């Protein structure tokens, strides 16, 4: 099982390294969005607006990044892969790959965001990074499953967004709360209970993806 997951993960990275335009496209998408925000807002002195905008940008970038996780595979490759690997291994590999992708995207986004939108207001950096890490995990668990559903329909891009938004809301509200605490430099003990909730949400969405994915791929 673990070996299968590792091989599939390796396959994802190999594919990505051979089609660099796709990851470069995502990064450019992120940078352009931040630049548009910069041109519209000019500056964002209010920390809660700074925080909310950062996560909304990441939300859209994440949906865009994960939506292709099942759409890019051609029909023939799909069938071939599913005869070779178990569905559980496939979903675990896709989730891990998307998690890494989202972490990389959010870190790049964070740096560009700080540079373009004036200064780094964060007082508790380790907490903020933990938040980004756990948030990316949760996003990828939900979004990977939704992309598996959306890829099977004939309306996939709209569906990807409308299916994911309501399911991501609990996650994003918790994530925003924690990063707001990190910006304000509140005592970490206040954030522990939110971190526990975030971890729990990740666990639930991961478990649901793991359990339900086998029903999604058989035709």
């Amino acid at each position: 099982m673990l070996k299968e997951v590792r091989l599939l993960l390796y396959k994802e990275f190999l594919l990505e390294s051979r089609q660099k335009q796709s990851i470069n496209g995502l990064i450019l998408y992120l940078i352009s969005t931040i630049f548009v925000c910069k041109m519209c807002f000019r500056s964002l002195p209010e920390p809660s607006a700074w925080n909310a905008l950062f996560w909304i940008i990441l939300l859209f970038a994440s949906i865009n990044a994960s939506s292709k996780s099942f759409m890019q595979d051609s029909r023939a490759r799909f069938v071939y892969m599913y005869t070779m690997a178990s569905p559980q291994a496939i979903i675990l590999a896709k989730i891990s790959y998307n998690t890494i992708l989202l972490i990389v995207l959010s870190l790049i986004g964070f740096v560009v965001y700080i540079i373009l939108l004036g200064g780094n207001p964060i007082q508790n950096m380790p907490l903020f990074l933990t938040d980004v890490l756990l948030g990316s995990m949760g996003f990828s668990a939900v979004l990977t499953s939704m992309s598996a559903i959306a890829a099977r329909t004939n309306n996939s891009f709209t569906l990807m967004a409308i299916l994911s938004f309501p399911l991501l809301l609990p996650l994003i509200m918790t994530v925003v709360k924690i990063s707001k605490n990190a910006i304000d430099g509140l005592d970490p003990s206040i954030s522990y209970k939110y971190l526990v909730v975030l971890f729990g949400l990740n666990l639930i969405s991961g478990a649901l993806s793991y359990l339900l994915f086998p029903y999604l791929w058989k035709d």
Partner: protein
Amino acid sequence: MNIKKNWWKAITCVLLFYTVIEGFLGAVPARDILNETIRNLYFHVPMWFGMMTLLFISVIYGIKHLHNGAMRSDLIAREAAHTGVIMGVLGLITGSLWARYTWGTWWTQDTKLNGAAITMLIYFAYFILRGSVEDEQKRARLSAVYSIFAFVMMIVFVMILPRMEDSLHPGNGGNPAFSKYDLDSKMRLVFYPAVLGWVLLGVWIMSVRIRIASISEALLNHSDTHPTS
């Protein structure tokens, strides 16, 4: 009419007449701000109970469908979700009316209200998902998976998040729920029958919808096999 099969419909009628008559004419404790709006307890709260019951039925039949692949389960899941959303919209409207007269606004930023809105968003997305897949089996499976995923996340949202933040809603953040006002338990005498009545009404509407849907499906299949008739 088969008495053995339909007794619960008679009970539904009796309970709802009792709810409406007692709910509008019966005595309620007079309280500041709430005044007569406390009667909304007999309508707004039971509608949410009805919605949750129906959505729960929908998820159960979704799981059943994934388990046995029967199209009948998918039909029940769909109609239960439809009826649940109707109940939810009614709950939203009654809640909004109540908020207008007690909080002074139709809608406000509050975790309980957001939970309700998200539930609606999830189920509208569910219907759009159903509309976007042509193959019947695939549609049934995809929407069952989504409804299970969404229902669990919704429960998490409705149950956990309000406990993390303060809320204006009665029963949260130090705001008393009706049990505090209802010292002589008179309201309970109407409230519990009202819950049962509205839930049963929802199930009744659902069962009628299921019958209509299965008849129209049968008619469709019939006209496919006998194109001239």
